């Protein structure tokens, strides 16, 4: 059964349907949004399709190896133009169409005014094990 990673972005995606930035939402709008996300995950737990999920902080920086015995090189915080992942959910479903359907449901989480956010989500197939029989 294929796994897919659904990626939610703070920025870098295309413009959502309901384009009011999160910092202008009311407390109750945020509550409704978070409740929707929790219920969505619970629904996938119940259907046996949930693998894992996490929300990511906006903070972060680039890091890389800089040679033997040297400390890691860092570069940050991220530039304002960087595509920034806000969170991810790993699902295990029967088909690509099912993954698209679920991503669409997740994108319908309410935003300002309780209207569906309609944000763009990235759907990325996870590599599968190599099949035994190929010829």
């Amino acid at each position, binding site marked *: *059964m294929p796994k897919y990673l659904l990626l939610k972005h703070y920025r870098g995606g295309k413009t959502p349907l309901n384009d009011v930035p999160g910092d202008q939402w009311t407390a109750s709008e945020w509550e409704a949004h978070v409740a929707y996300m929790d219920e969505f995950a619970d629904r996938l737990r119940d259907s046996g399709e949930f693998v894992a999920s996490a929300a990511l902080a906006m903070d972060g920086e680039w890091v890389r190896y800089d040679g033997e015995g040297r400390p890691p090189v860092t570069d940050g915080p991220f530039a304002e133009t960087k595509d920034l992942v806000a969170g991810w959910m790993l699902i295990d479903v029967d088909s690509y169409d099912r993954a698209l359907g679920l991503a669409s449901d997740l994108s319908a989480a309410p935003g300002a005014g309780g209207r569906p956010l309609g944000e763009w989500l990235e759907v990325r*197939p996870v590599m599968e094990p190599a099949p035994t*029989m190929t010829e």
Partner: protein
Amino acid sequence: MGREVSHEGDPMEEPGLRERVPHVVNTLVRRGLSFVAAEDAVQAALVRAVEVWPQDPPGNPTGWLVTAAWRAFLDQVRSDGARALREERSAVEPQPGAAPSRDDTLWLYFLCAHPALTPSSAVALTLRAVGGLTTRQIAEAYLVPEATMAQRISRAKQRIAGVGLDRPGTVTTVLRVLYLLFNEGYSGDIDLAAEAIRLTRQLTAQIDETEVSGLLALMLLHHARREARTGTGGRLVPLSEQDRGLWDTRLIAEGIDLLQKALARERRGEYQVQAAIAALHADAPSAEETDWPQIVEWYDDLVALTGSDVVRTNRAVALGEAEGPRAGLAALAAIDGTTPRYAAASAYLHERAGDLDIAAPAYAEAARRATSEAERVHLERQAVRLRGVQGWGRSGEGST
């Protein structure tokens, strides 16, 4: 029945435990429990057996499991209270035409592969109720949380709860589930390929169908090459480059014998035909000595049986070996270019035809479309090899 291949490298495994699970489910259902209740109770007994048996092996393992499962059922009834008591009463009333009368477990295979189930649910339920694996083991084998797998199995059971045990799915769906189990497993602690072989072998003892033998033959012939299929670091080794000395001749002999007996009965099906192709590869002392014209003929049969573009793509590659790469490319030209492994087949045939300028980017394209990491790396290496790049390590090289 296949015990020699089922428990390799699994220290947690109690010999004889898993084979008994379907029989114990069968026994409880014959006592009047619903499949759902019986299967839950046997799972509880199984989990208990894994804990207890290593220190305290039972004298009568089947009796132990039946008793433990019955107790688990009663405990469940008590803890569920009045609601479940009503269900118990109806469970103990024999369901009209529902309870299997013979002491076999064939109906379990059919029920677990019921067409109302999604493939992944059917595979999971088969592994638990027929294969005798615990939910945790199945979850680990498919890299999902145990709670997720428990839900998937529970929902699958709810879905088929109302299905009469006398009218389950067809043998085709059972074979499809076993095929998926064999072909699409991860290689974790639970050896799903070996498990698929064990369950298919058990099935051949219960049902006399040429396609069941054909599928078992197909599995054995591919399993025989397992050691040769991966090189250092999990690298894929294509058939033509495999060390044939690593092939398991005992499994090959068994597979060919099964296949010959099935084919003699003149009831062809896709698994027998696939096995025939695998057998021709197994028969060849070297890649050069492969009987490609005969393989192409079997692919013609397989195309007629399946109408699948994946099969047509494989046939084009075989045709390229039998009649030259131009013939293979001509056959490929008639196939939908989005077919899985089309780009890899195209790259290979172009390389054989000497069109290296086309083959190298085609390998890179095939790598981009690969659905497994091992295939992607293999195809990237082919692209790099054709471009004459020395060494390997700049992973971006092949994907540009």
